[in-house]
C-alpha cells in the first residue's frame, strides 16, 4: 500500500487551445478527505475526470495507490464517482443501480444482494430497492448515487459537486453526514466543490484552484488564515484588501502606508516580503471577523474610521467602515449578547484593532 491514494505529477490537460489543467501536482493521502475548491471553469472537475480516467492527461502522470495509470480506461481504475447529475440509470431499479458495479465485477449473486442491502442501509435508505430513480426525491437520488459508488469499496471515491442540486438545509445535513460516512468507511474522498464553506467544513485538506492551476494546498485553517495570494484570500472569505506602499522595514515588521494617510504595521519576516519589495506596492489582507471595533483607541496602532453601514445578520453584525477617502473595510462582530458588545450606529467614529498576526502581506 502506498502512502498516497492518488498522486498527480505535473499533470496538464489541453482541449485544443484551451488549457483546462495546467501543471498540477497533488499528493492525496490515504484515507484523506481532500477537496478541490475553485470557481466554475477553474479545472477542478477536469482534474477529477483525469483521476477517474474519463480524460487522459496531455502531459504528466496520474498514480492511484502507487500505480501509474497511463491510458487505463475508467472501468479498470479502482475508483468510483458520484456524479453531479447523479447519473442514475433510469431504466433500472434502485437495487439494480447499486448492484451494477458488483455485477460487472462478477461478484457472486448472494454477496451482491447482501452488499447492496448493506449499502442502502449505510445511506439510510433501506426498503427502497424496487423503486425507480424517478420515484425518488433529489436527496434520495443523491444517496443512491453514493451507495452505488461505495458498494464497490473503491480505493478512492470521487465526488463531483454531489450536493450542488440540493437545497441549503439538506446540503448542510448531508455535509455532516458525508463527513461522518467518510470517517466510518475510511475511504479516500476527493471532493470537488465551488462552495468554500463546504470545503472548509468537510475537508482534511483543500487545494484551491484557479485557471487550471493549484494556487495553494493546505488544511482549512492554513487556507483560511494564511492564504497564499490574493485570489485564495478573496475566494475563501470576504477578506479586506488594503493596497499601499511599503514605507519602512524594521526587524520582523513593515510599515505600509495606505492612500498616503493611513499607516499599518504588518509583522513580516523581511525575506518573505513579496516581490515589488521595498517601497513597492503591496496588499494587506485582514479578515472581517479578526477586527474589533472600539469607541476609544485601545492602543497607538488602532486605526480610526467612520461607520458607513450596519447590517444585522443574526449571528453577526457587519459594519462597513470608511478608513480613508478611497478605502473601506468590512468588520464582522459576533452578537455575543446584549451589552456584551458595543453597538455602533451609522456615522459613529470608531477605532479598529486586530492582533498583529492577523494582518497579512500578499503580493499584489
Amino acid at each position, binding site marked *: 500500500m502506498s502512502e498516497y491514494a492518488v498522486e498527480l505529477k505535473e499533470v496538464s490537460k489541453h482541449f485544443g487551445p484551451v488549457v483546462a489543467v495546467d501543471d498540477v501536482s497533488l499528493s492525496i493521502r490515504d484515507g484523506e478527505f481532500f477537496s478541490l475548491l475553485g470557481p466554475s471553469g477553474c479545472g477542478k472537475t477536469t482534474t477529477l475526470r483525469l483521476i477517474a480516467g474519463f480524460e487522459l492527461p496531455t502531459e504528466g502522470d496520474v498514480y492511484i495507490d502507487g500505480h501509474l495509470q497511463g491510458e487505463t*480506461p475508467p472501468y479498470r481504475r479502482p475508483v468510483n464517482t458520484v456524479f453531479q447529475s447523479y447519473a442514475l440509470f433510469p431504466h433500472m431499479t434502485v437495487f439494480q443501480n447499486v448492484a451494477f458495479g458488483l455485477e460487472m465485477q462478477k461478484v457472486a449473486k448472494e454477496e451482491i444482494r447482501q452488499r447492496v442491502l448493506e449499502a442502502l442501509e449505510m445511506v439510510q435508505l433501506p426498503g427502497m430497492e424496487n423503486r425507480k430513480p424517478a420515484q425518488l426525491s433529489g436527496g434520495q437520488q443523491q444517496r443512491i448515487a453514493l451507495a452505488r459508488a461505495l458498494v464497490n469499496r473503491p480505493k478512492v471515491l470521487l465526488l463531483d459537486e454531489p450536493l450542488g442540486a440540493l437545497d441549503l438545509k439538506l446540503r448542510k445535513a448531508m455535509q455532516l453526514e458525508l463527513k461522518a460516512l467518510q470517517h466510518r468507511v475510511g475511504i479516500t474522498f476527493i471532493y470537488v466543490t465551488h462552495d468554500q464553506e463546504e470545503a472548509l467544513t468537510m475537508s482534511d485538506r483543500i487545494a484551491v484552484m484557479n485557471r487550471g492551476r493549484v494556487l495553494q494546498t493546505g488544511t482549512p485553517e492554513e487556507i483560511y488564515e494564511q492564504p497564499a495570494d490574493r485570489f485564495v484570500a478573496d475566494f475563501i472569505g470576504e477578506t479586506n484588501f488594503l493596497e499601499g506602499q511599503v514605507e519602512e522595514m524594521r526587524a520582523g515588521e513593515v510599515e505600509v502606508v495606505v492612500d498616503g494617510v493611513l499607516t499599518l504595521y504588518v509583522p513580516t519576516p523581511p525575506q518573505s516580503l513579496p516581490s515589488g519589495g521595498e517601497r513597492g506596492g503591496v496588499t494587506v489582507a485582514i479578515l472581517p471577523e479578526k477586527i474589533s471595533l472600539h469607541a476609544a483607541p485601545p492602543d497607538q496602532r488602532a486605526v480610526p474610521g467612520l461607520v458607513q453601514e450596519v447590517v444585522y445578520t443574526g449571528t453577526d453584525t457587519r459594519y462597513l467602515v470608511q478608513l480613508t477617502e478611497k478605502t473601506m473595510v468590512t468588520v464582522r462582530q459576533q452578537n455575543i449578547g446584549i451589552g456584551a458588545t458595543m453597538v455602533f450606529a451609522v456615522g459613529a467614529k470608531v477605532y479598529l484593532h486586530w492582533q498583529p498576526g492577523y494582518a497579512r502581506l500578499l503580493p499584489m
Partner: protein
Amino acid sequence: MAAQPRSRRETWRILFLVSPSLVWLVVFFLIPLILVFAISFGQRGTYGGVKWVLNLGSYTRFFDPLYLRIFGRTLYIAGATTLICLLTGYPLAYFIATRPPQWRNPLLLLLMIPFWTNFLVRTYAWILILRDQGLINTFWTGSLHAGLQQLSSLVPLPIWEPLLRGTAHPLALFGTDLAIIVGLVYGWLPDMVLPCYAAIERFDFSLVEAAQDLYANRLKSFLRVILPLTMPGIAAGSVLVFIPSLGAYITPDLLGGAKTTMIGNVIYSQFMAARDYPFGSAISFVLMAVMLVGTLIYFRMGTK
C-alpha cells in the same frame, strides 16, 4: 353537478377542433375499411363484382399453401428488411447523434436528399444496377472476367478455373428476394434512422460514464445502458420499416420481376386482374391483423 355544463361545452369545443380530421378519416378511411371488411365475407360474382352471400370462403382460401408460401416470403422479406435497416441505420443514427451539434442537421439533410427523388425513379435506378446487363453485372462479366483471364494467362494456376466460370455469366440479382430486400432497405432506411437518431440524441451520455466508472467496458455499457434506453427509437423505427415493407407493392413489382411476388402484389392482382374483390379484401384484412400484432408488440416495448 355544477361543473357539468362547462365540461359539456369543453367536449363540443374539442369535437369542433378535431372535426375536420375526424370527417376526413370517417369518409375516406373508416367507411372504405368497413366496405372492404364486408366484401371480404362476400362471394366473387361470375363477371367480377360481389355477390352478397355471407361466407368465409375467402379466408379459408388464404390458407392454401400457395398463398401461405407467398405470405411467408413476405414476412421473411419484411423481417430481413427491418433487420438490415436496423443493423445499418442504428450505427448511422449513433454516428450522426454523436457529432458536434452544428454537424447533425446537415448530416440528416444529406440522409434525406436522395429521398427528394420520386420513389418510382429510385426503384427504376435499382433495376439498372441489378439487372443482367446492369452496372454490377457489366463489371462482373466484363472488367472482372477479363482481368481474371489475363491473370490466368500470366500465372497459370488451377484456382482461376472456377473463378473464370463464375464470372462468365451474370449474377442472378434482378428478380430475386435479395433484389426486393435491397430496394426496400434503400427505400425505408431513413424511417429507421430518424427515430433511432431522436432516441440517441436525447440519450444522456453521462450514463455511459457512470457505467464505465462502475467497471462496465464499452460493450457492456452499450448493451446494459445505451441499448435499453434507446429501445423506444429502435421499436418505432422497426415498426415504421416493417409495416410498409409488409404491404410493399411497387418494389416487388419492379425488382421482383415475374418470379417473386409479395402479398401486396397478390392483393393487387385479385382486385385488378382476377377481379376477385372478396379474396383481395380477405387478404388485406389478414395482413392488417398481422400489422396490428406488430404494432401491439411495439407498444409493449415502448411502455416497458
